[in-house]
């Protein structure tokens, strides 16, 4: 079959690889009908995520049709149409029972590696680093889905692939980011990063009733999409983020801040970005926490920092004194996708939201490598790419 494989920094190729087979009784094989490129894939593409191996199959946002089911799987039938969450979950460990799915204790088959890197393991993830199990991903014609009697979400034929595909990742991610803010009707929610995750976070914060939602980025068309969803926009190339945020909140700062950028933040307007670039280049720091610093600084005391943006390792010069003295709460994590999918699927069915608004490019799987670049470089107004086999 065809699959997009990682071969190194900025080197994704469409390779011919063996078809996957059922390995465990609870497995299923899915024939992919749509998959997407996610901002998290870019961290692998740009070589910032440790633990990748040449030939790894990429992709963790995908859906399709069940074509084979293991003997122990009582939930799925051949022919079912499913969206597959990017987190692999067992459904009955202590964490899964508490709906903390992204830290499932059983599905990471490289648990020892993760225990060493993080202290305790987190869940297995599709198409991601070997620290999270190194499971072959969904930017491929076929995918083996482990524990397929728990994670996959059956979707009705009345909805298109485009409407439900993002249930597997960015929609619940933006949603959880907003939920973690415990939004009150008087709140201002400031969101850094107008990529697909930030776009979903804007809509979620509006639905959850925030009085004011503010989006910070420097890409005009991404800001225009955020404005369409109800956000006030700040272009950090043209204006001072801290000043504008204070202006918009009567000098008090936003109560809730969301980091939808993660470890590759760029900032042309500050000396700290220079410091981070240099340290990252010298391998003294793995991530660039410019957004984190800005959020800690500008957030209203007793506020919440919600961080869906992905970090991989170590960061430096975090104003922890400000964070502590201001009494800020940090909430973060890979998304507990299955905690939200039923509710969000219902909202899509009821027409409350149609997540397909974010798709700007649709292409064939074999053209995927080129679209990694288009997405990363934000060429041609690209915000979200969907690939079809």
């Amino acid at each position, binding site marked *: 079959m065809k699959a997009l494989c990682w071969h190194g920094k900025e080197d994704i190729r469409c390779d011919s690889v063996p078809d996957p087979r059922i390995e465990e009784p609870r497995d299923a094989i899915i024939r992919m009908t749509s998959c997407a490129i996610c901002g998290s894939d870019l961290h692998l593409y740009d070589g910032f995520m440790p633990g990748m191996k040449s030939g790894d199959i990429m992709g963790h946002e995908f859906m399709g049709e069940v074509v084979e089911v293991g003997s122990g799987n009582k939930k799925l039938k051949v022919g079912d149409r499913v969206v597959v969450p990017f987190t692999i979950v067992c459904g009955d460990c202590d964490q899964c029972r508490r709906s903390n799915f992204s830290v499932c204790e059983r599905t990471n088959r490289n648990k020892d590696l993760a225990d060493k890197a993080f202290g305790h393991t987190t869940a297995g993830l599709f198409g991601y680093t070997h620290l999270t199990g190194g499971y072959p991903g969904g930017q491929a014609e076929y995918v083996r889905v482990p524990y397929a009697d728990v994670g996959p979400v059956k979707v009705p034929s009345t909805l298109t692939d485009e409407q439900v595909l993002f249930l597997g990742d960015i929609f619940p991610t933006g949603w959880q980011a907003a*939920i973690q803010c415990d939004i009150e009707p008087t709140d201002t929610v400031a969101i850094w990063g107008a990529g697909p995750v930030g776009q979903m976070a804007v809509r979620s914060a*509006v639905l959850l009733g925030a009085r004011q939602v503010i989006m910070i980025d420097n890409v005009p*068309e991404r800001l225009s999409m955020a*404005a369409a*969803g109800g956000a006030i926009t700040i272009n950090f190339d043209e204006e001072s983020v801290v000043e504008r945020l204070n202006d918009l909140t009567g000098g008090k700062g936003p109560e809730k801040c969301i980091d939808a950028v993660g470890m590759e933040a760029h900032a*042309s307007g500050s000396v700290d970005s220079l410091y981070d670039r240099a340290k990252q280049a010298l391998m003294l720091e793995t991530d660039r926490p410019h957004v984190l610093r800005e959020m800690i600084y500008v957030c209203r005391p007793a506020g919440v920092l919600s961080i869906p943006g992905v970090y991989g390792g170590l960061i430096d010069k975090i104003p922890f004194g400000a964070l502590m003295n201001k009494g800020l709460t940090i909430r973060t994590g890979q998304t507990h996708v299955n905690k939200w999918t039923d509710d969000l699927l219902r909202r899509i069915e009821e027409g409350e939201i*149609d997540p397909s608004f974010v798709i700007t490019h649709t292409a064939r799987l074999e053209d995927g490598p080129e679209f990694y670049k288009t997405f990363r470089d934000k060429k041609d107004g690209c915000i979200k790419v969907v690939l079809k086999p």
Partner: protein
Amino acid sequence: MTRMKTMLGYAGAKRLARGLGWFSIALGALELLAPRRVGDALGMQHESGAIQAYGAREIASGIGILAARDPTPWIWARVIGDALDLATLAPNADPRNPQRPYVLMAIGAVAGVALLDYLCADGLARKEDDHRSRRDYADRSGFPQSPNAMRGAAREPEMVSTARH
């Protein structure tokens, strides 16, 4: 000089500016830390002080380029600096200077970088063209009604309790 129209767009110019910024810092550090070596190579042994001053200037414009919200003025500062470098090097291209071949090489290198600096400044001036060609997604709300009408649609008691689990 005629405007080299097709050479560089705004995005390319921004990337080039970063490269030039780092280049400035590296060259400046060399001039600042090893002025004798640089002076010896160019037959300018007695001008260590001037070379160090030039190094400090390079570093300042490098930091300016990398840290500024808009690097354009700093890139123009580099263009002027290039002219100054050329003016300083030119008298040393005298045939009596035993290091003349190196001076000529240095002049060639500075001239090359000067061209890059100029192209970069020129490309940065194209910011407006760049924005006009961009797409506008003002019609992509994802909501069935205006965002204002949708505000709070998901604020049901049931929702809030899920969040607090």
